[in-house]
């Protein structure tokens, strides 16, 4: 649905985007992550035809944004970083204006009211946009992007300024929309991307640094795949039993963590899921398993690792320390 090829954008000597390529298939939700100034908004502005690229092409639904701008733009609903709202209009006037501007052909009243219900702005429908709170303005911005039911939605930080309850509602809305829309969503809230997106792209300093399924990305980038287990049983016997288990490469004991319970780190062969064997072993021996977790990176770790250029171990230990302090 969206094809971005070798996109480069230079502002004089400043390179905002450097040879970025990706594509998004129909009906997928893609998360777009990156620190401030990484080029997220620039990319989105280029895809929607607000900015032009220095090099590279963007096609939306088969239409090149430069060669057939009007055809391509008809397919896109765009919520920019700052919602493009006219403060001197009421919500009603504004949505009707955008309806005309986008040359929507759906039944006017019905379509606009349906969107208002969807983003819950019908109670402010007749109020002046300039007098609305930030959250409402943001939602009017989302409503504007949904007008005409475009197959592609590009949302630049859609949940900024919303309260926690609204954030959950809007996330759910985006997820629902993702079933029959192609969505690109930028965010700096990692849990949001993790909750909503199937796929995530991370850019840093204008360069694409990661592209993959949200849950695979964390797994693939982790340097080690170990299980940390806590077992209620005699330390040395457990250690011995674990070491002799098939597919196990290394077992370390972290010592007594609770009264009578010890923590172990188990490293298994790559691509072998040891958890079931482990459970069966412990059950057979009658040692209750109290906790098990893996050492895969979280999306947050991945993000920090990729965008700060720091050593993964350093990043990890930092976050761990932070967790302990909490």
């Amino acid at each position, binding site marked *: 649905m969206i094809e971005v090829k070798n996109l480069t954008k230079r502002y004089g000597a400043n390179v905002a985007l450097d040879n970025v390529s990706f594509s998004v298939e129909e009906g997928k939700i893609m998360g777009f992550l990156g620190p401030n100034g990484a080029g997220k908004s620039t990319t989105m502005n280029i895809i*929607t035809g607000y900015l032009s690229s220095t090099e590279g092409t963007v096609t939306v639904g088969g239409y090149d944004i430069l060669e057939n701008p009007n055809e391509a733009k008809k397919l896109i609903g765009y919520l920019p970083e700052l919602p493009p709202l*006219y403060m001197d209009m009421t919500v009603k006037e504004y949505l009707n204006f955008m309806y005309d501007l986008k040359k929507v052909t759906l039944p006017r009243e019905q379509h606009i009211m349906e969107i208002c219900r969807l983003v819950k702005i019908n109670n402010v429908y007749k109020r002046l946009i300039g007098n609305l709170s930030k959250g409402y303005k943001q939602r009017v911005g989302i409503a504007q992007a949904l007008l005409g039911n475009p197959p592609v939605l590009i949302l630049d930080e859609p949940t900024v300024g919303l309260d926690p309850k609204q954030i959950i509602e809007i996330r759910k809305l985006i997820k629902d929309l993702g079933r029959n829309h192609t969505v690109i969503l930028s965010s700096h809230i990692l849990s949001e991307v993790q909750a909503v997106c199937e796929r995530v792209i991370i850019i840093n300093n204008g360069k694409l640094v990661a592209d993959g399924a949200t849950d695979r990305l964390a797994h693939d980038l982790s340097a080690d795949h170990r299980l940390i287990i806590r077992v209620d049983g005699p330390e040395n016997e457990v250690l011995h039993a674990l070491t002799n288990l098939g597919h196990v490469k290394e077992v370390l004991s972290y010592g007594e963590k609770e009264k009578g319970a010890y923590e172990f780190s188990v490293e298994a062969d790559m691509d072998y899921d040891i958890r079931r064997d482990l459970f069966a072993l412990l059950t057979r021996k009658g040692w209750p398993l109290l906790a098990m977790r893996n050492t895969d990176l979280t999306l947050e770790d991945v993000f920090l690792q990729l965008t700060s250029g720091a050593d993964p171990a350093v990043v990890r230990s930092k976050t761990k320390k932070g967790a302990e302090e909490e």
Partner: protein
Amino acid sequence: MKAILRRELKSYFSSPIGYVCIAVLLALFGFLYFSIMYTGSSSYIYMVYSNMFTFCMMVIPILTMKSMSDEQRNKTDQALLTAPVSVTAIVLGKFLAAFIVYAIAMTGSLLPCVAISLFGSPSWGEIFGYYLGSLFYGAAMISIGVFISSLTVSQVISAIATFAVSIFILMMGQISSLASGTFIAQVVDWLAFDSRYSYFTQGIFNISSVVFFLSVVAIFVFLTARRLESKRWS
């Protein structure tokens, strides 16, 4: 284009700008009519219109100051430029909205003439000549104003710059007289709005003047559209 035109017109009249501009122009018209008709006769109506030429030049910058600059400052141009409309349609919508407000004021200026016609016999041919002339040079000034407002995000700078250009255009006749007889004087005279306008005030419907003013409109609408386009490439 229609959507933008409608929105712009609405915004002129949802804020005081539209009313104030129309009211100021009509009040000045009324005053000039009164003072000139009081001392002269309806055949002096050309004096009213040649004075109004100056006043319109002062009001037009107020009409055009926010047309593009406000969009850029509030980032609402993102909605316009990512919508399936051409840049030329956006600029034309903006231009026409300002022009319609101006035309309303100008049409209002015909009212005193109607009043006079009840008691005398003004030359309607002449009056319509002025009316049309004012519309044409007004259109040219508005297109320049819209262009200038696309160059800056500040309404104040936009208004002042347009005002400065207005004054320069007003003084073109005097500038050419400083260098009379030279090639420069010829060029300046050819470009001067007031000499083009003066045909209308003499009751002559000069096609070359009409073409001149319409060309100015076309050039500046084109330049504004290119200016919006060029922002994408910067």
